[in-house]
C-alpha cells in the first residue's frame, strides 16, 4: 500500500516536472483552464492595453509560462495573483483593487448617475410645474 502510494506520488511529481519542463500548455485540462482564465486577468506589461492572454510580446509569453509554473507547483489562483503583484506591482492587474486610492475610480460612475438623476429630477419637476401653470392646452 505504501508502495502504491509512493508510486502514485512519484507519478504526480513526475507529471509536475514534465509540466514545468514544457509549460507552454499544461497537459492537465483543468489546470490549463485555470491558467487561461488567470492570464486574462493580468496585463501585458509592455503592451498598450492587451492582456497576457492576447499579447504576442516575448515578456507576455514568459509570464504565461510563469503562471503555469506556479499552477503546476500547486499555487491557488490567489497565490498566483499575490505572487505577480508582489513582483510587478498592481499595474499588472487588469481590474484594480477597491481600496483607498481607487474609491473615487470605482464610485465615480455611480456618483455621476446619482448627481445627474438629481439634476434631471429638478428639471423635470420645474418643467411639469410650468406645464400645469400654462393655460389649458389647445386641442390638436
Amino acid at each position, binding site marked *: 500500500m505504501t508502495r502504491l502510494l509512493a508510486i502514485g506520488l512519484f507519478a504526480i511529481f513526475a507529471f509536475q516536472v514534465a509540466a514545468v519542463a514544457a509549460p*507552454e*500548455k499544461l497537459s492537465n485540462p483543468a489546470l490549463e483552464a485555470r491558467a487561461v482564465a488567470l492570464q486574462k*486577468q493580468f*496585463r501585458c506589461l509592455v503592451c*498598450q*492595453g*492587451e*492582456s497576457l*492572454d*492576447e499579447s*504576442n510580446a516575448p515578456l507576455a509569453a514568459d509570464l504565461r509560462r510563469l503562471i503555469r509554473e506556479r499552477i503546476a507547483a500547486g499555487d491557488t489562483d490567489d497565490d498566483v495573483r499575490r505572487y505577480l503583484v508582489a513582483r510587478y*506591482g*498592481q*499595474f*499588472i*492587474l*487588469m*481590474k*484594480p483593487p477597491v481600496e483607498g*486610492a*481607487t474609491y*473615487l*475610480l*470605482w464610485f*465615480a*460612475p455611480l456618483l*455621476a*448617475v446619482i448627481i*445627474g*438623476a438629481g*439634476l*434631471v429630477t429638478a*428639471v*423635470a419637476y*420645474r*418643467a*411639469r410645474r*410650468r*406645464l400645469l*401653470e*400654462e393655460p389649458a*392646452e389647445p386641442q390638436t
Partner: protein
Amino acid sequence: MTGEIGLLSLSLALALALVQSLAGLAGARGNGARAAAVASGAAMGLLVFVGLAFASLIFGFVTSDFSILDVAQNSHTAKPLLYKITGAWGNHEGSMVLWVFVLSLYSGFIAFAQRGGTRLTSAALGVQGLLAAAFLLFILLTSNPFVRLDPPPFEGAGLNPLLQDPGLAFHPPVLYAGYVGLSAAFAYAAAGLVTGEADARWARAARPFMLIAWIALTLGITGGSWWAYYTLGWGGFWFWDPVENASLMPWLVATALLHSALATERTGAFRTWTLLLAILGFSLSLVGTFLVRSGVLTSVHAFANDPERGFFILMMLIAAIGGALVLFAWRAPKLESGSAFHPVSREMALLLNNLLLVSAAATVFVGTLYPLALDALTGKKISVGPPYFAITFAPIFIALLLLVPFGPRLAWRRGDLKSAVRSLAPAFGAALIAAVTALAIAVPRNVAGAGAFGLAAWLIASSIVDAVRRNRERAFGWTAAASAFAHAGLGVTLMGLAGTLVWKSEASDVLAPGQTMPIAGYELRLRDVADVNGPNYFAKRAEIDVWRGGRRIATLAPEKRSYPAEGQAVGKTAIRTTGFSDLYVALGDERERGRWVVRAYVNPLAPFIWLGGGIMALGGLASLLGRLGIRFKKSVAYAAAE
C-alpha cells in the same frame, strides 16, 4: 521645391486663419455684413492653401523625396503607392496637417452653406479661424512637416507595418472628420453664445455638422475596431485602450448632443444644455488629441512623442475649453427659457438618454485618466482594464438600451405611457422569444448571453414597430427612418457582442505539417508553411485546410510578415466568414523542427458588431439628408405630420 511650396502655403494659411477669426468675430455684430463676407472669403482661401500644403506633402511622399525629413523618416521607395499616400498622415507632422485640412474643409462648408444667417455663420467662422490659427501655429513651431534634410538619405526608414493596411489607411481621415467635425458644432455653440441667437433656428443650423461628425466618428470607431480584430491576431476588437477611449468619449457626448438638439430644434428646449454638450464634445476631441499626441501614452497611434508638443497642445486645450466654458458661464444664463413638459414625454426620454450617455462618457473619462492622475499625484501605478468597464460602463449602457425603445413612442410635451407600452408589446414579445430561444439552443447555456439577445431583439423589433406605426400614421420620413436605423443598429451590434464575447471558442497548439487541431466542430490541418515575398516584406505563409464533417471546406492562409526596412514583424490573420460566424486563424512563432504555433477562434456573429455600426451610420445619414432638405418619398404629405 514642393517642400517650400508647402511651407509657404502653411504660412499663408496661418495669415488667412487670423483674418478669418478677426473678420468673423467682427461680422458677428449686427452691422458687420462686410466683415462677415471677408471671413467667408478667408475661409475659402484657408481651404485652398491648407489643401495646397497637404497636396505638397502627399506629393513628397509619392515621389519619395527624401530631402524632406518627414518623408525620409516615414516612407520607403518599395512601399506600395497606396501606403506612400496614406503614409503622409501616418506620422505626427502629417497627421496634424490632415487635422487642419479637415478643419479648413469644415470652415469652407460653413462659409459655403451660410446656415443660420450671416451673424451666426460669421461668428462660427471666427471661432473656427481661431482654432485653425492655433493648430497652424502648432505645426509651424513644433511640427513642421517640410523640414529639409541635407544630404538626403538614399532610402527612407519606412512606415510602421501595422499601418500598412487598406483598412487603417482610411481610418485616420474618417476619425478626424469626426473629431474635427465636432469643432464645427463647437464653433456654432460659441457663435450662439456670442450672438445670443442660440434658439431653435440655431439648432437647425448646427445639426448637419453634428450629424456629419457623428457619422464619421461612428464609422471611424467601427472601422478601427474591425481593423484591430483582423490585424492583432487574437480576435479581440475593443481593448478599452486609452486611445480607443479617446474616440469613444466624443462619440458618447455627440450622441447625447444629437438627441438633446432634437428638443432644442423643436421648441428651443434644453438650449443651454445643448450648447454645453457641443462644447464638451469638441473638448473631448481635443483631450483625445492631447492624450494621443503628447507622449503621456504610448501606442501604435502615438507615433513620435514630444513633451514640448504635449505642452503646446495642453495650452491650446486650456485656452479652447476654458475660453468656451467662461463664455458659456457668462452668456448662457441669459438664454435660459424654461420648457414645459410632463414627466412622461419625449423631452423626459431625451433627458434620461442624456443622463445615461453622459454618465457613460464620464465613466470612460474617469477610467481613462484615473491611472494617469494617480501616477502623477502619488506615483502609484495601476491599470484600468476591461473588467472595470464591464462593471461600471456596461450597467449604465444596458439601462440606456432598455429605455431606448420608449423614446420614439412618446409624444412631445405630454406622452401616453400606456399606449407606448401597448404599441411596444410585439417588440417585448420578440425580445422574450429571442432570449428563450438563445437559452434553449445556444451551447453552453448562458443567461447573460441570452439576456443580451433579448435586449438586442427588443431594440431591433421596437425599431420596426416604430417605423410601421409611423408609416400607418403617415409620419414616416427621414427623422423616423433615422431613429429606426440608428436604434436597430445598436441591437445588431449588441447581438455581435454577445455572440463573440459569450460563445467564442478558442484553440491553440503547436503543429507540424500534417497535424490537426480541433475547434468548434472544425478540424484544422496544417498542410505546409512556405516562404512568400511581398513588395516590401518577406512572409511565412501557412496553408491550413479546414475540414468539417469529413469534407474539406476551405483553405486558410495566415501569414507572418517581416518588414526589413522597418525591422518589424506583423501577423496577417486569415478569416473565413459565413456572415453569421467567423473562423479566425493566426500563425504564431516557429518552434523547433518546423513546428508552428497556430491559434484559432470561432467567433459567432462577429460580423454583426461592425454591421451594426454601419447601420447606425445609415441612421445618421438619413437624419442628415432630412436636414439638408432632400425630399423623402412623398415627403410633401409627410412633412406636416412630422
